[in-house]
């Protein structure tokens, strides 16, 4: 049985300018201890998917239109706030992109770090502090005892992200949702944080949903990857298959437009056009207008995500018909 099973999640934002279907029918499962990459460009719905699971979508203007997310017998999307509180921040934790703004600048690191423990566990402050100290050491912060008394502004970006990770993992969650945790960091620091997440994941045996726009980050970290486009999952496969033999035209195009793979001096491959406007209803495949392999069939009906091999599923009519 999967640890988390999301079925037909639809989240939209009702604004004055219309309804934006940010997440438009997303289904996936996450196994225990698995690392799942969620890849896509801005606006593809990868962050909103995670926010929906964590109950962080502001409502209004956001609205979860349909779907279920089963975690250990509880539907995260429809459970009572009291039930949600026993799971969120304890059994499922999240870290965010910007370590500069996601810590409270007025609180000492110690107070923020042990807050989840004090809320979720019957534990004294001194015990909580001891565990906080151990956690801070586990994420590689030197002089942890002294740093506990520091304020966030005294830390660098990479150190703050380490504190965020310590805070998320202090309750030993079963799932860690990491929303672009290294995007705001320098490459050398990014490498450190990725190594840290990998190490802690093995130590704690937790599942990770890793959201990123950077395919390179995914390739070293994840067991399985899901590619999102315009609110839908267009392809999912184990990491090696996704990079070696992508089937969906969007995944292929995305990989081809990355500079490191291309010969120097020649023009980079580009995907023509722009991502679709999510406020306009589109019955067909969202990628059709930019797709090199488009046919007449692609416009009227949206393809479902169907298995094309035991480890790979693709939402493309032509791939499913074995035409490309």
């Amino acid at each position, binding site marked *: 049985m999967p640890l988390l099973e999301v079925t037909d999640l639809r989240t939209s934002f009702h604004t004055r300018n219309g309804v934006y279907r940010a997440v438009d029918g997303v289904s996936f499962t996450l196994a225990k201890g698995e690392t799942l990459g969620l890849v896509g*460009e801005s606006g593809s719905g990868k962050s909103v998917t995670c926010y929906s699971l964590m109950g962080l979508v502001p409502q209004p203007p956001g609205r979860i239109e349909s779907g279920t997310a089963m975690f250990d017998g509880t539907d995260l999307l429809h459970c009572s706030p009291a039930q949600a509180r026993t799971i969120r921040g304890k059994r499922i934790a999240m870290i965010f992109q910007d370590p500069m703004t996601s810590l409270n600048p007025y609180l000492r690191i110690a107070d923020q770090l042990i807050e989840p423990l004090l809320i979720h566990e019957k534990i004294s402050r001194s015990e909580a502090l001891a565990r906080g100290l151990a956690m801070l050491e586990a994420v590689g912060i030197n002089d942890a005892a002294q740093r506990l008394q520091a304020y966030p502004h005294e830390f660098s970006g990479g150190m703050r992200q380490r504190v965020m990770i310590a805070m998320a993992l202090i309750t030993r969650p079963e799932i860690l949702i990491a929303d672009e945790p290294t995007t705001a960091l320098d490459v*050398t620091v990014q490498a450190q944080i990725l190594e840290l997440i990998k190490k802690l994941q093995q130590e704690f045996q937790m599942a990770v949903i890793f959201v990123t726009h950077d395919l390179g980050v995914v390739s070293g970290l994840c067991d399985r990857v899901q590619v999102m486009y315009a609110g839908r999952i267009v392809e999912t496969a184990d990491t*090696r298959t996704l990079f070696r033999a992508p089937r969906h035209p969007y995944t292929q195009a995305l990989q081809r437009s990355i*500079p*490191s793979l291309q010969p120097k001096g020649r023009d980079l491959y580009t995907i023509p056009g722009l991502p679709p406007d999510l406020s306009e209803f589109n019955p067909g495949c969202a990628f059709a207008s930019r797709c090199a392999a488009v046919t007449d069939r692609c416009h009227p009906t949206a393809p479902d995500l169907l298995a094309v091999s035991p480890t790979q599923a693709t939402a493309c009519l032509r791939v499913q018909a074995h035409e490309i």
Partner: protein
Amino acid sequence: MSSPILQLNDVQTHFPVESGFLFRHQTGTVKAVDGITLSVQRGEVLGLVGESGCGKSTLARTIMQLVPTTAGTVLLEGRNLTAASAAELLVARRDLQMIFQDPFASLNPRLTVYATLAEPLLVHRVVPPEQVRARVVALAEKVGLSSQVLEKYPHEFSGGQRQRIAIARALALEPKVIIADEPVSALDVSIQAQILNLLAQLCREMNLTLIFIAHDLSVVKHISDRIAVMYLGKIVELGPATDVIERPRHPYTQALVSAIPQLDPDLQRSKPRLVLAGDPPSPLQPPTGCAFHPRCPHVQAECRTTNPLLQVAGPQRNVACLRLNEI
């Protein structure tokens, strides 16, 4: 070799750090750019890489004379910009233009695309007023914007299109040198490729000299002829682009290259990664000796006291490391 179009001689840009409320006094100096000597040839694309805070943007602003230079000279075709008057600078900037990182902040939200592109033409009186319109239309087409969008405002465009407008604005005066400060960092991969192609194509067509600043090494490698790697205000390695990326000599460049995530999952997992310990140092309290020594895997006693100079390490190759020949 012909004379370089842009020549920097020991350029330093320092910022005072002040504290105190009633009695403000200087308590320190940030040496954002600390002694950079560099020459750029006509038609060359020079990539400038480094982590945040290494001074690459300050160097760009120093070349543009947007910040006062503390010491050293910036020569554009032999003209010394650091000693130029405001009037002389205005003339020099016709040849020297800049593209900024954030196309959401660098365009005036109250000006239409037309007004944005016409402004430099009018300020510098490049063409008679009746020809401005035709020039603006030609500029827009050059960067792939249709003339129908000229009456729109920046908020009506996506990030990639805005960056096209910013590029068109930089090209309006037909400059000889363009400095692009992280022009694709704020863009998605597929859009990034479009803008990189556009920049490369414009450089070829107009024989532009481009200084391309980025933190993404694979992007820089793709577009540049030569790469300069900066660390804490200094250039630590300089050389032909492919050479620097494929055979990095300075330990810092080696770590940077090793930190590039590989797309191939097998390669990524098998290759030994050189993960640096620690953060980039604070420019307020730079380390003694070689600025990289606290993070360097090859550090020796000598590195802590002696500041390495940029030395010749091969054809067109310069590296600032004391242990260059040992590692």
